[in-house]
Structure formats: structure tokens, C-alpha cells
């Protein structure tokens, strides 16, 4: 037996050396980390709940109400025009309803997740398609609908000729001249009926927007589609979102709206800070301005920033809740949280300082737009770098390939 034992030991010892090496490695001290204990209890599900249930779900309900009000206001305006009345007041009311609706929408658009973002933003684009907008084709639709209202169907049209962007164009005409190089067939024949024709198309589109808004609100409504709960319970049984991390990544992806849409497109390209379609350098490019017909870009950017702040900090009407800032603090990145919220507040302050007329800001106070752009860049620099790294999140649309 002895020789067998010796042989067994000889065989076993090197194996144990290897195993012991691994075990020793596994039991290495933590190297005296700077931070040993959590400073705050953090509830990631609570963060998801705050954003999904408290911020977004009521927002979609509010937007559905606003969209319905807009539809009613446009219908009322059309009725006044059809009755050959003075449409000045009803037009003002319709425009005000549009501004209310777009302000609510812009808060939501800045954090677009879930049903509105599904299928490559299908529902989002049906409600508000900017930068997709084709004024000339809208003019053609004005004629088409006026000629055959019974057969005109908004549902069959492309996103660039419907949505709140098209409504803006239709409610804010600058002249009777078409946006097309050559007037569409039948345009000139509209004559004095042009305002009615425009209003008719606007009404058809606002009805569609109201329908889509209601569908979106229903998709989020507790007791309805209840997507807010789906997002809030990510990673739990019953949610279609498999992990909390995926839920957080969805919201993180949505926050990148600030980078592409606000920083680069709404501010940068419009003001000639970022390369644009006009080829201007440090000069405005009006065709890149978001709400160039209603001149509501200041309103839009303010609403975007407000929506982003609510989602980032979990703050609603001044009441703080769980947000990404708390998450960052909880994992030990308090400096980053402070810096990002500070830069967000700086951007909001600078947006508030902009003239109500974004077009006049571009014309006479471009420095204010440049300052706002710089403030948003400070946020997105952190968003794209340390924020993603610290929270272990992925950049949006990064679907292809492996790592190593």
C-alpha cells in the first residue's frame, strides 16, 4: 500500500499546488480600497420606478390630454374658417394649444423609451417626426385633401408630412406661396380657400396625433399596457425586460437624445457651431432650426432639458426622488454626479436666459446659443465617457459584434 500512497501523493501534490494557487488568488486582500462600505442604500428598481412610473407615465397621460386639446382647438379654428368668420382668435388658440402640446412632448421626447421608441421610433415619429419634415409634400397634401377629403388618409402618409412638425408648418404659414419650387397642381386654384385647406389637413393630422397619443398613454397606463410597471420591474418575473441593467440601459440610451438632437442638431447645426446642411461656419443655418415656423425652439430646448433633468435626478415639481445622480453617488462617483447635475442646471439656466425667440437669438445673440451649446457638451462629455464606464452601461445602438 505504501508505494501506492506515495505515488498518489506525488500525483496529487502538484495538482494541489495549482488548486492552492487559485484559491490563494481568490482570497487575496482587497488592497486597501479607498471605499469599503456603501454610503447609501441604493435601489435600482426604485430608480426605474421613479422614472417609469412617476416621471414618464403621467407625462404620457398629460400629453394625450394636450393632444386632444390641440385637436379640438384646430377643429374649432377650422369651423370658424368654414363659417367664414375671423379666424384670428381661433388661430391664436390653436397655436397656443400646439405650443402646449409640443412642450409636453419635448419633455418626453428627451427620454424616449418603451412603446414610443419601439420599431425604430415608429410611434414617436408618427407623433413628432422632426427632423423629418417635407414642407413641399405637405403643400401637395393640402391640395390633395382639399380635393378629396373622403379618400385622404393620414395613416398612409409618410412621417415627414404628418406629426406635430407638419401641424406646426400648417398653423404658422408665412404666406400663400407654396414651399415647392413650383406650386403643386391645384394650389393656385385654392385661392381664398387656402387657409381652410391648410386647416383641414392640420385637423386631419392632429386627429391622428391625438389617436396615437392616446394609444401611447394607454400603453403606459396602469391597468392598460402598464409599460411603466414593465420598466419598473425589469429583471423581475412578469416583466418583458430581462434585467434591471437592461432597463437602466434603455433609459441611458434615451438620455443620448441630449447629445445628438439637442447639442448637435437643435443648437449646433442651427447656430453654425456644428457642421450643417447650409455649409455655414459660425453663422446661423435657418433650415436646420427645429421650430422655424413657430419659432419655438427655445421652448423646445427648455422642455428637453427639463425632461432630462427629471429623468436624471428623479426630481418632479421640486420633489427629489431616486435618479441616476443618486445611483452615481451610491457607487462612489459623487464627483461625477455633482458635476453632471451642475452642468445640467447650468444648461437650464442658459436656456432660460435665451430670448423666447430662438430665431432672434440666432440673429442677435448667438453667443447665448453658443454658451448653451457648450453647457450641453459638458453634460454629454461626461455622459459618453465616465457615466457609461462607472455604471457599466453600453452606448446606444451598439448591437454588433463581440469584445475581447
Amino acid at each position, binding site marked *: 500500500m505504501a508505494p501506492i500512497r506515495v505515488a498518489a501523493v506525488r500525483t496529487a501534490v502538484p495538482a494541489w499546488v495549482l488548486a492552492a494557487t487559485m484559491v490563494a488568488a481568490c482570497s487575496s486582500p*482587497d488592497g486597501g480600497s479607498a471605499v469599503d462600505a456603501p454610503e447609501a442604500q*441604493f435601489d435600482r428598481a426604485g430608480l426605474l420606478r421613479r422614472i417609469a412610473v412617476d416621471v414618464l407615465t403621467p407625462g404620457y397621460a398629460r400629453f394625450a390630454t394636450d393632444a386632444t386639446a390641440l385637436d379640438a382647438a384646430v377643429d374649432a379654428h377650422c369651423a370658424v374658417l368654414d363659417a367664414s368668420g375671423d379666424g384670428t382668435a381661433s388661430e391664436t388658440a390653436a397655436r397656443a394649444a400646439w405650443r402646449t402640446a409640443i412642450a409636453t412632448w419635448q419633455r418626453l421626447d428627451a427620454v424616449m423609451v418603451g412603446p414610443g421608441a419601439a420599431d425604430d421610433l415608429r410611434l414617436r415619429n408618427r407623433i413628432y417626426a422632426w427632423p423629418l419634415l417635407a414642407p413641399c409634400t405637405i403643400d401637395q397634401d393640402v391640395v390633395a385633401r382639399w380635393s378629396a377629403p373622403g379618400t385622404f388618409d393620414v395613416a398612409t402618409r409618410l412621417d415627414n408630412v404628418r406629426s406635430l412638425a407638419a401641424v406646426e408648418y400648417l398653423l404658422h404659414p408665412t404666406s400663400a406661396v407654396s414651399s415647392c419650387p413650383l406650386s403643386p397642381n391645384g394650389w393656385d386654384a385654392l385661392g381664398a380657400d387656402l387657409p381652410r385647406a391648410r386647416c383641414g389637413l392640420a385637423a386631419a393630422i392632429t386627429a391622428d396625433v391625438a389617436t396615437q397619443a392616446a394609444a401611447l398613454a394607454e400603453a403606459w397606463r396602469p391597468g392598460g399596457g402598464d409599460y411603466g410597471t414593465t420598466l419598473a420591474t425589469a429583471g423581475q418575473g412578469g416583466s418583458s425586460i430581462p434585467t434591471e441593467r437592461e432597463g437602466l440601459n434603455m433609459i441611458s440610451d434615451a438620455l443620448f437624445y441630449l447629445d445628438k438632437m439637442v447639442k448637435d442638431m437643435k443648437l449646433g447645426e442651427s447656430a453654425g*457651431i456644428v*457642421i450643417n446642411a447650409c455649409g455655414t461656419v459660425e453663422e446661423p443655418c435657418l433650415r436646420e432650426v427645429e421650430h422655424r415656423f413657430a419659432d419655438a425652439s427655445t421652448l423646445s430646448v427648455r422642455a428637453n432639458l427639463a425632461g432630462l433633468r427629471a429623468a436624471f435626478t428623479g426630481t418632479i415639481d421640486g420633489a427629489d426622488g431616486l435618479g441616476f445622480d443618486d445611483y452615481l453617488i451610491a457607487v462612489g462617483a459623487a464627483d461625477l454626479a455633482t458635476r453632471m447635475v451642475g452642468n445640467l442646471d447650468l444648461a437650464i439656466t442658459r436656456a432660460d436666459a435665451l430670448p423666447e425667440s430662438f430665431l432672434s437669438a440666432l440673429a442677435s445673440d448667438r453667443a447665448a446659443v453658443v454658451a448653451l451649446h457648450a453647457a450641453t457638451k459638458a453634460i454629454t462629455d461626461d455622459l459618453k465617457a465616465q457615466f457609461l*464606464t462607472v*455604471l*457599466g452601461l453600453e452606448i446606444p445602438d*451598439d448591437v454588433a*459584434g463581440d469584445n*475581447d
Partner: protein
Amino acid sequence: MTVVDAGSRVTARVLARAARPIDAAALAAFRIAFGLIALVGVVRLLTSGWIAPMYQDPEVAFTYPGFGWVTAWPSWGMDLHYAVLGVLAALVTVGLWSRLASALFALGFAYTQLIDTTNYLNHHYLVVLLAGLLVVLPAHRTWSIDAWRAPSSRLDVVPAWTLWLLRFQVGVVYVFAGLAKLQGDWLLHAQPLNIWLSARTDTPLVGAWLDEQWVAYAMSWAGFVFDTTIVAWLLWGRTRVIAYVVLCGFHAATGYFFNIGMFPLIMSGAALVFFPPELPRRAIAALALRAGRASMPAPTSPRGPPAVGRALGALLVVHVVVQLALPLRHHLYPGDVRWNEDGARFAWQVMVREKHGSVTYIVRFPDGRRLQVPPRRYLTARQERELAGYPDLILQLGRRIGAEMHAAGHADVRVTVDARVSLNGRPAEAMIDPEIDLLTVSDVGARTWVTPAPSTDPIHLRARP
């Protein structure tokens, strides 16, 4: 006896051992395993929907020096290309026209990597190397249709150096991947594992511990010890089996936690070369016995193992030297390879850093005006992610922007870049001198245009109870 004599004797002894015949089954089994894994990898790519995002969606491709002429096939062409690679992998597996198939596979797969630098993966590079070795090794002369069709070419034994070469190639990956972890972030701060594991607390059973500091430290040190020593344990007969079990567990874990594709499967399969060369034949014989069939005959080569020609020998020596030199070359360059990425590719710098960044190009006109150019204008999201980590990619795109500006009539513009990058959770810092004109920079020699790596410690994430 002089030192020269002693050296000569050692050399002669090594050469004799290298020429010693061993069972050819080892090479054949490796060829079959490689072919199967390559086939799985190709089918996975074909069915993943990644081909379009990798090759068709990008409007701009980042090129390797001297390979700017390599461009992607049209959409159908890339699908067909990968389908052909699958066929070639199958041919390698069954050993039909095996050498030609290996050569075409190596070239064809290398082509897919050369199209766009952002597609670089260490394990894809390894696949090209292993396929290339199959071209020169006599792996096709045993257990192959080639050998069946031409029995005179069949070999039952091969020289030992053939297996040594495979072991060397696999060993290089582990050892240099281990040495890449010999740095403060990995060993003293457990980064980037702390970041990656903290994001995986949804993992069943063990998730609750994954954001604990001690887990990150344990896994960092385990990974370092594993990579640097596993080859030794595999070479030692007494620890080989347990080492291989540990190896499989290690790769299963890394494959589960990290999105590293075929890497675990490739390494788990390739590491079988450390087992005795006769093992595949014995294993099949045992299976045959269990099935009640006659056992596979022991190798009886009608001829001795093939001799190595001078040209092939020289080629293999060069290969070995290059494989040792490439991973070490970053030591010749100033700065931290994880930051400037100078010498990072083809060097087994596997999963040793986490980088995210924000890159904005700034075109500066002679009159002082500035125009920002977001990389998004040119790149897909995947490319933009890679861009932020690699100064050479940032330089390439900067030059393209400059060329477009020149073509538009702005001959005197300068192109600078605001590249703020976070390394292992540190606050983002400028990775490239924000004042330097990228149009005047050459990527030959030390990257002095890249800033020094951050000197602060990486972040330490707290556990989230």
C-alpha cells in the same frame, strides 16, 4: 568542454527532440477541432445579423497601414464570403484539400479583419494565425479525406516540433494576456473587473456578490495567476487534467460574464494541444472498444516524419520571433499602452481596460472661426465606440475630415480634436493634445501627440446592497 561545445550539444539535443516522432493524431485532432470551431463561428456570424452592421452600414472604414485598398464586398458578397469561409472550415474539418482550404480560410478571414480596423478582435487574430499554421503543419495527412484519397501521403507520426509550435502559439496568448494584467489598475485596484462585475449583479445565484470589492480583487488576481501560469500547469503531466478543468471553468465564466464571442471555445479547444499527442487516438480506441468495435491501430508510420526544409524552418523561426516581439513592442514606445494603444493590437492585450469617451473634431479656419464635426456624421455607433478608445483611429478620421475640407476649397484649415476619455472609470481626460493639428501628425514612431496616461487611481465602485 567549452561553452560553445555545451551550447552546441544543447542545441543538438533540442533539435533531436524536436525531430522525435510523435503520434500524428494530435495534429489531426487539432485540425478537426479548429475546423469545427471555425465553422460554428462562421455560422454564428452569418445568423447573428452582424454582417451588415460590420461591413455594410459603415460609410467610413478604418484601415491598417498599407491595406487601404482592402474594401468590403457588396452586401450579398459579404454574406457569400462568410458562407465560403464556412465551406472552407468544413473542408478543413474533414481534411479535404485541407492545406488549400486552410490557406484560403486564413486569407479570407484575414480579409474580413482588414476591411475595418474597428473589427479587430484578439481571438479573430488568433484564428488567422492558427489557420495559417495549419497550412504549414502536416495536420492534413492523418484522419483526413486527403490521406484517404492518397494513402501514400498518410502519416501516423509527425515530428514533435509540429505540436510544440501549436503549444507555443496557444501559450503565447495566455502568457502575454497575463503579462498585460501586470499593472496597477488590474492588480492593485481590481479594475476594470470591478466595473464589469458590478454591472452584472443581475446574474443568478452569484449576482449579489459581484459588486463586492473582494470579488473583483479575487477575480483580478485569479485571472492574472491563471493567464501567466496555466501553460506551465498544462505542460506538467501531473497537473494537466486539473489545469484543463480549471481552464474550462475559467473560460466558461469569462464567456458567461463578458461578451467575448468565440474566444472561450477557441481557447478551450486549442488548449487540448497540451495533452499527450497519442491521447486522441487512445480516446477513439477506448470509444471504439466500448462500442464493441476493433480498436484503432497504434501508429505505425511507413516512413519517418517529414524533414523540415530550410525555407520552412526559417519561416517558422521568423514566425516565433515575431510572435514574441509583437506583444512586447509596446515597451519600446513611451506611455501606457492602455491609453495610447501604441502596440496594443496583435499583442494579446485582452480585456485589460474599460474606455469610453466623447470625441469632437474641430475644424479651425485661418480667420479664427471654428466648426465642430461629430464623428457620428461618419461612423456607426459601434465604430464610434471603438474610435473613442484608439488614438490612431481618431487620427485617421481627422485626416479624412481634413481631406474633405480641402476638397471643399478650405485648403488652410487645421483639424484638432477634443477627445475626452475615461480609462477604467477615471474622470475623462483629453487623450490627444487638443491644440495639435491632426493633419500634421504622423502615426509613425512614438505617439507624442497622445497625452500621458492619467496619473490618478481608477474609480473604486462601492457595493450596492
